[in-house]
């Protein structure tokens, strides 16, 4: 090792330490980690929040599973998950959860000459396709749903997520509700043992593979389908109506739920009633401790989400997320006041 070289590196290190020493003073930035689905909107909110209040909130997408693990390991102030935890699991860990924004999962296809919304499928047919039982686009079941569309005889190429994902959880939860076969053979989880098809990494990977493969069908988050102008399909919902995936259709799905009855907001918005409801919708959740070790940090985090509920709806809509209805927000804030308490037994988010 030449000495001039090591000297240079040492100087760099010294500089680095000096830099870091200078910034320790305001190190109170809150950090959260978890689901990838809400990462863009949390980043957007955090940026606007910092501009307005000067407080930073650092959210990083490491996956819902990662978010649950990290909040349990107490390495972050809050965790985030696309899959709500069951009330008993929350109780065991001393956690509470609340939703922040909604989105939906949209099946997308690549068929020559087929425009977005031109093809209609229903739940059982969709399940059969993803089970590998329907293998061709001109199958009788698909024809029956689309009497006016000229369907090609292409083989169906199924594209699914390879990485564990909240999107897969919501999607498989829907298929399990509408198809007993799916429930028995595959089930519901963030990753599955898929009976057929190719796995692609991330929404990006699914979108790219659907775009490249003639005759393919995949599923992506709504924001993705919208931003990339993918060929979505119509789905027949629980009331027998064929609906297009739109923000209104997701809100309609949420509107039918009686949130006051849902313990810890444990609701998965699949196959909800309502003539206008899109059948595969879901919310994304935040996990915090009921009695946090660092009540101040958790209080800051709740303050941030309180701000986001009040000021963040337009930003969410811009990025193709669906804001929560106002009465749900009221319920959430009431649950904070009741559940998230400091060591002194008072709510960590001071009432105004």
């Amino acid at each position, binding site marked *: *090792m*030449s000495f001039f*070289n*090591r000297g240079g*590196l*040492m100087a*760099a*290190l010294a500089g*680095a*330490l000096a*830099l*870091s020493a*200078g*910034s*320790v003073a305001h*190190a109170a*930035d809150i*950090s959260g*980690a978890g689901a*990838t689905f809400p*990462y*863009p909107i949390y*980043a*957007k*909110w*955090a*940026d*606007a929040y*910092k501009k307005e209040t000067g407080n*930073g909130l*650092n*959210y*990083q*997408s*490491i996956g819902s599973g990662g978010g649950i693990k990290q909040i349990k*390991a*107490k*390495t*972050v102030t809050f965790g985030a998950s696309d899959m709500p935890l069951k009330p008993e699991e929350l109780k065991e860990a001393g956690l509470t959860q609340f939703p922040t924004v909604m989105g939906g999962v949209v099946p997308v296809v690549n068929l020559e000459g087929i425009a977005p919304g031109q093809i209609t499928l229903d739940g059982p047919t969709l399940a059969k396709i993803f089970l590998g039982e329907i293998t061709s686009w001109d199958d009788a079941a698909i024809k029956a749903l689309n009497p006016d569309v000229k369907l090609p005889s292409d083989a169906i190429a199924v594209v699914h997520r390879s990485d564990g994902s909240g999107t897969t959880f919501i999607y498989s939860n829907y298929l399990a509700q509408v198809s007993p076969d799916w429930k028995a053979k595959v089930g519901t989880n963030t990753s599955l043992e898929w009976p057929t098809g190719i796995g692609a*990494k*991330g*929404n*990006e*990977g699914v979108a790219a593979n659907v775009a490249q493969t003639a005759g393919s069908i995949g599923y992506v*988050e709504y*924001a*993705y389908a*919208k*931003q*990339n102008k993918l060929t979505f399909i119509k789905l027949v919902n629980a009331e027998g109506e064929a609906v297009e995936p739109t923000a209104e259709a997701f809100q309609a799905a949420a509107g039918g739920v009686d949130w006051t009855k849902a313990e810890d907001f444990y609701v998965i918005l699949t196959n909800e009633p309502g003539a206008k409801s899109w059948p595969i919708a879901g919310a994304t959740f935040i996990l915090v401790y009921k009695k946090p070790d660092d009540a101040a940090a958790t209080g800051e985090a709740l303050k941030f989400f309180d701000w986001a509920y009040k000021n963040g709806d337009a930003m969410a809509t*811009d*990025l*193709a997320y669906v804001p929560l209805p106002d009465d749900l927000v009221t319920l959430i804030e009431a649950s904070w006041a009741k559940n998230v308490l400091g060591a002194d037994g008072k709510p960590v988010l001071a009432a105004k």
Partner: protein
Amino acid sequence: MAYATRRLRNLVMMTLCVVSAAIGLGWLLLILGALLYEGFSGLSVAVFTQMTPPPGEAGGLLNAILGSLLMTGIAVVVGTPIGVLAATYMAEYGRHARLTQVVRFINDILLSAPSIIVGLFVYELLVRRMGHFSAIAGAVALAVIVIPVVLRTTEDMLLLVPNALREAGTAIGAPRWIVIRSVAYRAARAGMITGVLLAVARVSGETAPLLFTALSNQFWSTDLNAPMASLPVTIFQFALSPYEDWQALAWTGALIITVAVLTLSILARTLGGRREGR
């Protein structure tokens, strides 16, 4: 074998060699071309002066670039002396020791161990104990990757130093550690610098070990005890997002890393070349 057959066989084989060289270079050009095409359009001053933006707004990669520089820098400062000292033991003091053989083998395994495993190790070692993600943990994970690269090249270079030089040093009465410092290190200097640069090149593109250690950070942060952004993680997150402006930044970030790594490689090669030429 008839002369004509031998000539023909030679011609065929040599043509195949030229073809394989053409394929190798063609591939490089294709990949670099795609990268330049996608990454160059997003390159601007803002990339180097602004923070990573939320989707839909203008911004840059400054915090990610800084984080990468800082963590890579610390990793090299920590990893290099360890690698060099271990290599010194193996090439100088314990050339025939059993320990040397074992360490050499172990080092080769570390050299090709998947980096995600290194990330998991440091997560258990530091993040879990400290209770939060931090740039220090990220730097340590990178240092674990730096050590085997530096060790390997330094040992190779020290073994190439002719023994006559060492003997000359010892003959004038210099103790061993001075011989090593002033003779062996000096003779092997260019090769050792090459090793360090190669190590930098290797770690500056690593995503997996940082994801569970340094995490990332949306904002400007120089606090080593807090999560810190880095280019590879930012590229990874932005490339897989649905928003075009984020994807463009991801390509630009990829271009920056590649150019930096390639520059370092060329630098390392020319330094190494000068040594050979001397």
